[in-house]
């Protein structure tokens, strides 16, 4: 199922993967996949989370070894059994989690990956070379800067430079636009075009259809570990790609009737003139005025790093307000502990359940009890009422339509089930305020629908929801009101009907605001 090469080239592809299969315990990640990449081509590997894209590329990069199949370099078989081998045949990969060392400078980070680094390292020469190459491709960065000082976008530039300077001719980029705002994505594409011009081959792993249609020369869609289709861009359309990615129509989301609140209702949460001070790489929040009323979902849009995580943490109490007040149900909780807030029926669904909400080695049931230990403690704390915990949890699970085992360690749950576990826990005691952060990041379609449904159900019950997300689709779909954060400040506040993706996207990256300042 191979597509014709770009511009009908007669040269063999730079890399061919044939009949690649790979399975992990319980899952077949790659099922006899064929894949080609030519020089001077941007080839996008498209698919949902879990479709097998990362696995395939990690095999190409030597991180994993395929169970069967072969890889050809310029038509000849080649064995890639470690990243070393991959780099030897000029394949480089930029992972989602950057492999930069924060305590080193940009030059040192790049020097670490140079294949022919001298025994005695001349950092000045390396720096000069970095400046040369970065100018050539539009990847401007200061070689002497310490990586921990750089923004995520700048770090990404360093990662790409690292590949180019260490002699890679094939660049594999894993979800590169995940942390970028719309116009930064444009800048990245410009960089990729100029790199492609010089004969480089680029593989873009992504699940964002719009970006693929904009920049890829060819597109291969993976679904459930196999190739669902492969096209050149001129033949591709959003519809076709969606069909290939999902194989079926997405089941609709019941958004339900929006609860109309009375004008005089008391806000559940009120932040007035809140300022917070972030530590290290965290953003400072300034001048935050925010109200959440019962029966509404307030969406907070913003690019990672502009304050949304901090906002959620301020509401919860993880971060202190240095100025301003925070009221919950009318009471001043500006300096209250997290414990107190939790006791006041505030639920918190964090962006990364495994690292931020669950203890991996405790059982699911134990994890359920952890937020309300005082409630279930018997005899002053000497024992816990496990039966009551179980009953309450099963109740909620039935109400939400979830089902998973309670007696296994939390880390055995899949990502989707883990998120469900947290949702069950947080919704069990009928919270009046829910802070949901990146609710569906990394979830598969079924889990996404289930999670959103749960929030809507909660709203229907009169709770107020603060939905923090980068996913504009989700925000527009679910929010009653939409607030945009940029640089730790609120730069926009609308009803979703009043605005569109583009306007919000611009606000998220500060461009609208700057334009206003310039005129």
């Amino acid at each position, binding site marked *: 199922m191979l597509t014709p090469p770009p511009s009908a080239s007669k040269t063999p592809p730079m890399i061919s993967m044939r009949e690649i299969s790979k399975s992990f315990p319980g899952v077949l990640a790659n099922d006899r996949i064929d894949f080609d990449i030519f020089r001077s081509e941007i080839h996008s590997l498209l698919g949902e989370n879990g479709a097998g894209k990362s696995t395939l590329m990690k095999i190409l990069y030597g991180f994993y070894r395929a169970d069967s199949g072969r890889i050809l370099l310029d038509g000849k078989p080649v064995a890639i059994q470690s*990243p070393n081998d991959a780099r030897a045949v000029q394949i480089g990969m930029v992972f989602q989690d950057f492999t930069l060392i924060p305590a080193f400078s940009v030059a*040192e980070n790049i020097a*670490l990956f140079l*294949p022919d680094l001298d*025994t005695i*390292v001349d950092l000045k020469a390396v720096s000069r070379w970095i400046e040369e190459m970065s100018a050539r491709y539009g990847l401007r960065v200061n070689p002497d800067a310490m990586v921990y000082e750089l923004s995520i976008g700048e770090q990404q530039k360093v990662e790409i430079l690292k590949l180019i300077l260490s002699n890679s001719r094939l660049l594999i980029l894993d979800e590169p636009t995940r942390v970028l705002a719309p116009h930064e994505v444009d800048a990245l594409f410009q960089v990729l075009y100029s790199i492609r011009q010089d004969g480089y081959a680029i593989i873009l792993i992504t699940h964002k259809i719009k970006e693929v249609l904009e920049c890829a020369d060819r597109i291969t869609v993976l679904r459930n570990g196999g190739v669902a289709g492969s096209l050149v861009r001129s033949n591709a359309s959003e519809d076709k790609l969606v069909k290939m990615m999902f194989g079926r129509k997405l089941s609709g989301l019941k958004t339900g009737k929006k609860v109309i609140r009375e004008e005089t209702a008391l806000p559940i949460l009120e932040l007035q003139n809140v300022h917070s001070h972030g530590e290290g790489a965290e953003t400072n929040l300034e001048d935050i005025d925010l109200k959440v009323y019962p029966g509404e979902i307030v969406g907070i849009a913003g690019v990672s790093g502009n304050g949304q995580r901090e906002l959620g943490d301020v509401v919860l109490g993880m971060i202190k307000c240095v100025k301003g007040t925070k009221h919950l149900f009318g009471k001043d909780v500006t300096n209250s502990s997290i414990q107190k807030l939790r006791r006041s029926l505030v639920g918190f669904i964090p962006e990364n359940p495994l690292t931020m909400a669950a203890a991996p080695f405790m059982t699911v049931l134990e994890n359920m009890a952890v937020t309300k230990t005082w409630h279930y403690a018997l005899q002053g704390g000497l024992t816990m009422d496990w039966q009551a915990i179980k009953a309450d949890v099963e109740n909620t699970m039935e109400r939400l339509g979830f089902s998973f085992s309670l007696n296994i360690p939390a880390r055995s749950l899949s990502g989707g089930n883990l998120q469900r576990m947290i949702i069950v826990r947080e919704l069990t005691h009928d919270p009046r305020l829910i802070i949901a952060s990146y609710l569906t990041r990394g979830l598969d379609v079924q889990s996404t629908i289930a999670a959103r449904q749960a929030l809507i159900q909660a709203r229907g019950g009169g709770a107020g929801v603060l939905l923090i997300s980068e996913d504009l689709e989700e925000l527009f779909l679910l929010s009653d009101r939409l607030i945009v954060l940029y640089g730790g400040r609120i730069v926009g506040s609308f009803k979703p009907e009043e605005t569109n993706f583009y306007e919000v996207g611009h606000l998220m990256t500060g461009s609208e605001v700057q334009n206003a300042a310039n005129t």
Partner: protein
Amino acid sequence: MTLLSVLGVLSSAIFSGTSLLYTTLGEIIDQRSGIVNLGLEGVMLVSASAGFAVTAITDNPYLGVLVSIIAGGLMNMILGFLVISRRANQLASGLALMFFGFGLSALIGSSFVGTKIKGLPRLPLPGLSNLPMLYSSLFNFDLLIYLAIPMAILVWWLLFRTRWGLGLRAVGENADTTFASGRNPLLIRYQALFVGGLLAGLGAAHLSIAYTMNWTEYMTAGRGFIAVALVIFSKWNPLRAIVGALLFSGAVAFQLLLQSSGIQISPFLLDTIPYVITIIVLIAWGGTRRHTAPASLGRVYQGSE
């Protein structure tokens, strides 16, 4: 408080601090690669006893120093095997090594307690020949003392100006990234431990062969732990360690100075100074939130996949 007594303190600090400096340099290399060696005390003891024994038997201090150095490297290799190849807990392994060193050194040194050896020859510091004998004799240093600061500079250069050093520091920050760069973090850590052990052995050699020129059980008296403190105090930088070693060992010599001016402070309290200073310094840094320790210090490298 006379010039003589001040110079005496300085001289004493230099003598006492040399072994501390070498050992600290070795531990800096180890910790830069991500490994904490709590067994340094044991390593030093074994090296000191072995070197002393050989010197006593062969009457050749240089041979003794060589044996000391090698002994240090070998002791550290035990830690390396446990921590790197068997992925054992670093703290527990270091402590076990410490106990091992207590025992082994006592066994080696038992027949040599009280033996006198001819230590390393002492040469006067150049440029002091004009001073009266009383002063200049304070600065008759042995070879290892003269080599100490150059060694610190060499270690600095190795860590920050060579390819090997870059890889080593990278392992201490993030072993996975280093692996991704085509290096073998396990091998690098072994190398770091070996070199670090050689330096620790050198420090121990100076202690028993050149400075005190005798052997007693537990003679390192906590220097292994002071070295760990000094590594932190010098922010894992070999050049800073020079100053720190002088400061830390000066504290003990300081008591002599105080005595001569009539102030009596218990030597025990003065002995606590290196540790107390380090704690204070740590508290001061704590406020800045910028972690200067190698990021993977203490963690066991698990390998990829």
